[in-house]
């Protein structure tokens, strides 16, 4: 009898399609929730996404956009109150210092899931050139989009714009999702083989307990809860990594002209990057030792602007000679635009490298920073996360096509096999760059400069590096 009732309930779920406009919070929508089926008063979902940040929301959007996955019931667990509200990012606000460099690969992912149109309605800055040089003045590389027959190399977008675009995208679908405005406190995953004596009706679900006393069941738990992932900790997944004993100062600055190029200069203490963010504004990510970071954070605004101009142009060493090898025009070294004003607070973040030893265990999978935290060089971090979300949504769709249990380890391991080697490669490259510039020795500087010159003047190599860095190509060089 019980079984028949259960069957009916399930049938209703599948027949019942609520056009939920706007994200509904769990409390507001208890009526809707009952329709999702519950066991012992607890809610059951196909997928629980822990962490509704950029990567978690990107996964939800990706799931809502594919015909095979759009009928899944999804719970999003995040205590961020912004998730339940109407999206409201004003275009005339000063740019937020927290920005991401979105690669062409991530842009096409956003287009596929229908979120890029919302990004376009807000401030964003495409760039088609990139200049990398170092303080020794020995070498430089200037990349342009035309090197790879592309229109752009990337787009700099404020994180809040990316996040709100994903939210708007999700609100305009009738995807079944419930937001739990709470934090995860406990996670119980039963072993896969059935054992007599346990509550069999939920044994193939992970049980999640929340800080507000609610609990829910999900076939698959996705940890998208960032570098300090609680899901990773509760699933007892170990990590490998180290702190760089470096901090990054992040802020918005103003020029007198509009910037269309991404600039990065390697200094003895770490790189400084100047990224266009639109309307004569740029974003600064400046890496240095923690002591310096504290000093520069507290110095006067005028002194800070001077220090930035010093670091980008006239300090630390000579500028590279642009036509030493007879190159000119598009490829010659250029002076970055002068910074005239500080336009936001200065934020300081510690840098670290962290990589989860496993991305998937039974019923639990990690995406984004929960799986890998990389050096912010070249702005690759969030792009790796979007790559994870894209890969995971495809693998879930493949699983549904063949009737797989979504939490099945063999399915989740396919995601790990696809993403882990690629992420490790990028992590290692960025770490290598960091290490290359943590040494200041004459002969080493020349070698480094020679590497720069090689990249600048050997075009297949240059094309290869650009395609890899922009996410068009999964492996660098000859892999």
């Amino acid at each position, binding site marked *: 009898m019980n079984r028949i009732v259960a069957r009916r309930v399930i049938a209703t779920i599948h027949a019942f399609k609520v056009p939920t406009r706007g994200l509904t919070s769990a409390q507001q929508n208890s009526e809707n929730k009952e329709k999702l089926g519950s066991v012992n008063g607890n809610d059951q979902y196909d997928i629980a996404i822990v962490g509704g940040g950029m990567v978690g929301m990107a996964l939800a959007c990706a799931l809502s956009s594919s015909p095979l996955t759009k009928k899944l019931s999804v719970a999003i667990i995040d205590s961020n109150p912004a998730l339940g509200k109407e999206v409201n990012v004003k275009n005339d606000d000063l740019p937020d210092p927290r920005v991401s460099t979105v690669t062409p690969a991530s842009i096409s992912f956003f287009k596929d899931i229908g979120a890029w149109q919302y990004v376009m309605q807000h401030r964003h800055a495409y760039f088609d050139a990139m200049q990398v040089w170092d303080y020794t003045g020995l070498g430089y590389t200037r990349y342009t989009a035309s090197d790879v027959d592309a229109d752009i190399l990337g787009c700099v977008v404020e994180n809040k714009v990316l996040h709100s675009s994903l939210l708007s995208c999700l609100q305009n679908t009738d995807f079944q999702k419930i937001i739990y405005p709470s934090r995860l406190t406990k996670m119980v995953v039963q072993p896969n083989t059935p054992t007599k004596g346990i509550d069999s009706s939920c044994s193939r*679900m992970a049980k999640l307990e929340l800080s507000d006393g609610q609990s829910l069941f999900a076939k698959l738990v996705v940890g998208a809860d960032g570098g300090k992932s609680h899901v990773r900790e509760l699933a007892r997944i170990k990590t490998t990594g180290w702190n760089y004993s470096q901090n990054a100062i992040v802020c918005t600055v103003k020029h007198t002209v509009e910037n269309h190029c991404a600039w990065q200069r390697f200094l003895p203490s770490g790189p400084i990057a100047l990224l266009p963010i639109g309307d004569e504004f740029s974003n600064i990510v400046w890496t240095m030792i923690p002591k310096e970071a504290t000093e520069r954070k507290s110095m006067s605004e005028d002194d800070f602007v001077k220090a930035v101009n010093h670091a980008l142009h006239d300090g630390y060493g000579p500028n590279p000679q642009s036509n030493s090898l007879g190159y000119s025009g598009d490829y010659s070294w250029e002076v970055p635009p002068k910074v005239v004003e500080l336009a936001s607070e200065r934020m300081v973040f510690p840098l670290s490298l962290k990589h989860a030893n496993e991305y998937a265990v039974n019923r639990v999978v990690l995406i984004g920073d929960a799986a890998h935290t990389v050096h912010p060089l070249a702005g690759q971090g969030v792009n790796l996360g979007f790559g994870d979300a894209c890969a995971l949504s495809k693998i879930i769709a*493949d699983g549904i096509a*063949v*009737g797989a249990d979504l939490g099945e*380890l*063999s399915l989740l391991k396919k995601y790990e096999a696809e993403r882990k080697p690629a992420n490790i490669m990028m992590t290692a490259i960025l770490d290598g760059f960091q290490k290359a510039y943590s040494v200041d020795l004459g002969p080493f500087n020349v070698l480094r400069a020679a590497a720069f010159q090689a990249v600048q003047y050997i075009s297949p190599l240059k094309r290869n590096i650009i395609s890899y860095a922009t996410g068009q190509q999964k492996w660098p060089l000859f892999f």
Partner: protein
Amino acid sequence: MASKLLKLTKFINTSSKKISKVSIFSASHIIQTRPFSDTPQKVPNTTTSSVPPFHEKNYSLDGAKKPISSSLNPVELAKFSAIAETWWDPQGPFKPLHIMNPTRLSFIRSTLCRHFRKNPHSARPFEGLKIIDVGCGGGILSEPLARMGATVTGIDAVDKNIKIARLHAESDPVTSSIEYCCTTAEKLVEEQRKFDVVIALEVIEHVAEPAEFCKSLASLTVPHGATLISTINRSMRSYATAIVAAEYLLQWLPKGTHQWSSFLTPEELVLILNRASISVQEMAGFVYNPLTGRWALSDDISVNFIAFSTKNSE
């Protein structure tokens, strides 16, 4: 196609004359006794027709069966009963089946969606289809079929398998609707049960009497319904891969899981299905890629293969 089959029948007939020195039997009988197999066989008795090898139940002349009669092989049943509890252990004795499962299901999905005109982009394309999984084991095929929307009946002659399957299916509300029975295809035929789709994957090679088994599968299928059978070819390569490599070298399967001589070639399968008024529409092979550790569908049917067939109208 028809002429090819005819030639094949002739070939089987003539060669069997040479080997078993029996000249007056019908082709169907010859297939049942498998003149090509290298295992010792009973010399057919000319007075009682069709007494197949290994078969311990008595068949009367008219083919009527005793109650638990079936095309099953008791030795095979004991073999599976011994490892029933490991069905759902992805690293256990049934690991090869777990790895192969998505590939088999994608073939089933595409052929059934086409035949029954179901939307291939739906998450539950099999809604409204009654499917029986013959030889369901622990339910590793029945459960995905149920998730794809089918009304599933799983049967297995090993009682332990059915218990494991039920226990496992109950832990998920979507699969708890599967009807599991410890019974045989023959018994359900007697009960006059009918299904839109009859699936027997990796079963026929464990059956003593494949021709009888196929007749039962045919009787369970509604007219214009579909029958899917997968098995292992009886080829040199299958001996090398399915027995030597899988059982002895890689030890994926317990030794003695398969008897090479009980394997059917695709031609033999087409023939015996044809005699049961089922026409094979499509065949595909499964090939294993040792680098990725995954199975893929292919045209190569020399080892593992699956046949999609439809039942002719009566």
